[in-house]
């Protein structure tokens, strides 16, 4: 794959004119998917998919294009040449962009991660016997992923990794569910079976009599998976500098009104885990760690080079969409064993679902409880709760209402497979909030 990328990019660079700058990037995967329902196989297959993306800067304009790499060099080169010609023609037709961002030659990188993963041939036998006897539903996503970037100024990046993710739910007879995601790079059968056993034990707790609770405000513990979902919302009309400038960000209050979150809340963009490439789709390389919010104070937004040019900011080489690629929230002091006592009376939420801004400028997010969510009385779990809707502001639960932050962080892998398998995930602890609003 890397050789194909090098061949096609070098050939294309030889075709461009002196006043043209071309960036070529690649997103590819060779994946296996096994979809499961009721501990049986619903659908299964393999996907080889690689896209070449082109960005040409010429005549004060930026034109972009992409096509699927077929694997036939002459065929693919024909497609690429056709795209170059199209972009060249359009660059003389479309409006000039005063904020054209030229790529830079800021160094090259090469990273190939080898691992002892789960072979496509063995996947069924590795998983299926262990999940029998329980209502298991979910998906195995498995295989290699590739990212490449090169520009006509001489910069080259390559990143290749292999990973698996078994993302699943166990379902009790009363329809209560437990969520699990066994993910990694090296497959270890014992570790998988132990992880699954933990989920099965948790499922037993879901067989307790459900508790009906009323709407209102409750002291609430959020497991790391739930905190991760809140943090992911920052990538949508949140942390983006362009969003703030264009009046579409929940972070506007922090920027414009000097509102601070809790001193216990710190989050950064942290590439040190090495699970995603440090280079973005323009080939720009971020520093290893960008503090976003430190002790409750907004330190940095995510600034792409284009946003920097348009609004007079300094780029921190965010992606053009200015979303978090490797967020990491700092741990606190609350021990895992003390969580139930600290809740005393309130909610223990393992997962949340279907989040959306209900009032973006005020930071208000609505969504629902899902999976292992419990009512706690006198520091003990009473039983699972029925699904409840919440509607509350992150300025509350990451702000004045934030009582404590968990001592242990978890890595919550991204399991998204829209278009292609995503890399990376979110590292974060759980949090305890004094008040959280349930509305329906």
């Amino acid at each position, binding site marked *: 794959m890397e050789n194909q990328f090098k061949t096609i990019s070098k050939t294309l660079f030889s075709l461009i004119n002196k006043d043209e700058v071309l960036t070529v990037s690649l997103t590819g995967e060779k994946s296996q998917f096994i*979809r499961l*329902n*009721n*501990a*049986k*196989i*619903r659908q*299964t*297959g*393999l*996907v*080889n*998919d690689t*896209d070449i993306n082109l960005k040409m800067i010429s005549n004060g*304009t*930026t*034109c*972009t*294009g*992409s*096509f699927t790499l*077929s694997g036939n060099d002459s*065929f693919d080169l024909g497609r690429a040449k056709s*795209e170059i010609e*199209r972009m060249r023609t359009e660059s003389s*037709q*479309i*409006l*000039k*962009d005063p*904020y054209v961002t030229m790529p830079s030659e800021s160094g090259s990188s090469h990273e190939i991660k080898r691992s002892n993963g789960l072979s*496509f*041939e063995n996947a069924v*036998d590795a998983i299926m016997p262990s999940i029998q006897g329980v209502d298991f*539903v979910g998906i195995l*996503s498995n295989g290699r992923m590739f990212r490449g970037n090169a520009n006509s100024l001489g910069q080259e990046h390559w990143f290749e990794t292999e990973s698996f993710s078994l*993302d699943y739910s166990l379902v009790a007879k009363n*329809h209560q*569910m437990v969520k699990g995601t066994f993910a990694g790079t090296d497959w270890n059968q014992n570790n998988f079976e132990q992880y699954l056993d933990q989920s099965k034990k948790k499922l037993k707790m879901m067989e307790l009599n459900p508790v009906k609770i009323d709407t209102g405000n409750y002291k609430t513990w959020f497991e790391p998976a739930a905190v991760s979902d809140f943090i992911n919302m920052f990538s949508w009309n949140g942390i983006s500098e362009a969003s703030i*400038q*264009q009046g*579409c960000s929940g972070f506007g*209050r922090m920027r414009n*009104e000097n509102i601070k979150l809790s001193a216990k809340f710190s989050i950064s963009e942290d590439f040190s885990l090495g699970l995603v490439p440090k280079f973005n789709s323009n080939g720009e390389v971020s520093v290893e760690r960008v503090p976003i919010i430190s002790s409750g104070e907004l330190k940095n937004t995510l600034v792409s080079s284009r946003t920097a040019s*348009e609004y007079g900011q300094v780029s921190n080489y965010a992606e053009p969409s200015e979303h978090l690629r490797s967020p990491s929230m700092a741990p606190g002091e609350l021990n895992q064993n003390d969580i139930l006592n600290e809740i005393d009376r309130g909610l223990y939420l393992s997962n949340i679902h279907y*989040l*959306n801004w*209900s009032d973006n*400028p*005020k930071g208000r997010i*609505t969504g*629902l409880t899902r999976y292992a969510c419990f009512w706690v009385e006198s520091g003990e779990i009473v039983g699972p709760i029925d*699904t409840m*809707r919440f*509607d509350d502001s992150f300025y509350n639960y990451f702000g004045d209402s934030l009582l404590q932050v968990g001592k242990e962080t978890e890595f919550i892998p991204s399991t998204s*497979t*829209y278009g292609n*398998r995503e890399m990376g995930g979110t590292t974060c602890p759980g949090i305890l909030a004094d008040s959280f609003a349930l*509305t*329906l």
Partner: protein
Amino acid sequence: MRDKINLKSLLDAVNVPADWVGIREVYESNTPRMIRDGIPVSNGHYSTHGVMVEVLVNGQFGYFGTPDISKKGIEEASNKAYFQAKAASKYALHRFTDEVRPKSAGKYSSEFEKDLRDISAKDINIMLLDACNALKVSDKIVSASSLANVIETNFHFVSSNGSDVVQDFLMLEFDLSATAVDGANQQTRTFGGMRGTCRQTGREFLDNIEILAQANKIGNQAIELLSADETPTGEMDIVIAPDQMMLQIHESIGHALEVDRILGDERNYAGWSFVKLEDFGKMQYGSKHMNITFDPTVSSEFASYAFDDGGLKAEREYLIKDGLLVRGLGGKESQVRSGLEGVANFRASSWNRAPIDRMANINLEPGESSFDEIIGSVEKGIYVESNRSWSIDDYRNKFQFGCEYGKMIENGKLTKTIKNPNYRGISNPFWNSLKMVGNGDTYGIYGTPNCGKGEPNQVIRVGHASPLCLFENIQVFGGA
């Protein structure tokens, strides 16, 4: 430009002892162009092209999605798909036959008068720039944007039991957006909410809408919202415009009736459903005014087609008749698994994903009431347009939706403008509170390009058409 492939000849390259083989080729290009604040931010042309080779072995399907459309590539793909299916077959959830891939042959093309692809990049840029400038009616408009995305999809499906289906689609997504800011008050107004203006159409759609007039109206309404009162909190009547009904239908009817959800396939991702298999033919889903159709035959709607991706012929069917649930959204696989009648809705997002039960066009049929009759019947309530926020639980029960623009209804008349209109409810009682349905004059055709579902995940296009509707005694509320 799509490369022409002789797909039928590639079936000969398949050399595995499968009970059935299908090859589904998809080429798709998206050409988005966008102007924001007077500057071009997108002029792209993104294409994807590949095939999915699918085989049936011992009652289990296996697939291989590949961009290598050579004979060698298809041979390798079929071998690997065969291995996947065979290995999985001892744990098959259901043992299928080729009954679920019926033999079918035919063609479909989107209807249009003037080809969208004939508009030059220059002309679209200028049209969008003019629209963008028209949106900026005040210095308080801090951001204005205009977007047109032309989508071309070519689909070809052949199979070992004689299917040969060719479908060509030409689509347009069009949007205008203005964000007004005054201090901490931010308000965004768009052309139909959340990219809701999307059609199978030609250039005539752009010619027929008065783009500059619409842009001016959207800009002015964004400014109007800055000084509008907050939406009141309380239980009251709500009149919902078609561009918000689009999402109401999508989330609280469409997804709930997908039979693969009811069968549990989606429980780890999108969720389950409050509807059970035994509810079909018995459940009063909504009031007697409620008539919902699965209708892939509306020529200009976003998700019209002649065959689904398994080859089943697509026909209009009632899902809900006079409020009674009569049919689910289940393709052939779901039909044999559930024993229910279904529809031709077995669809995939592209060549690299396997088909599952999806919506197509799910429409609320017009009633008898005029706009004035509906508004005139409300003593106290709100009128809302254009979705901006959506959320619903994994059983499709508890929803909450936010809209861009609202008006108070007082004593049968539209009065002052209100900002941040939100409402929430539970699907079944909500639809049973449907009191009046607008006539054809109040009807609007919308859709969404971003319906997410499935594992691996798939985004698909769906259409929703609806008249104006009145619901009584709904929880409404405003901003924080």
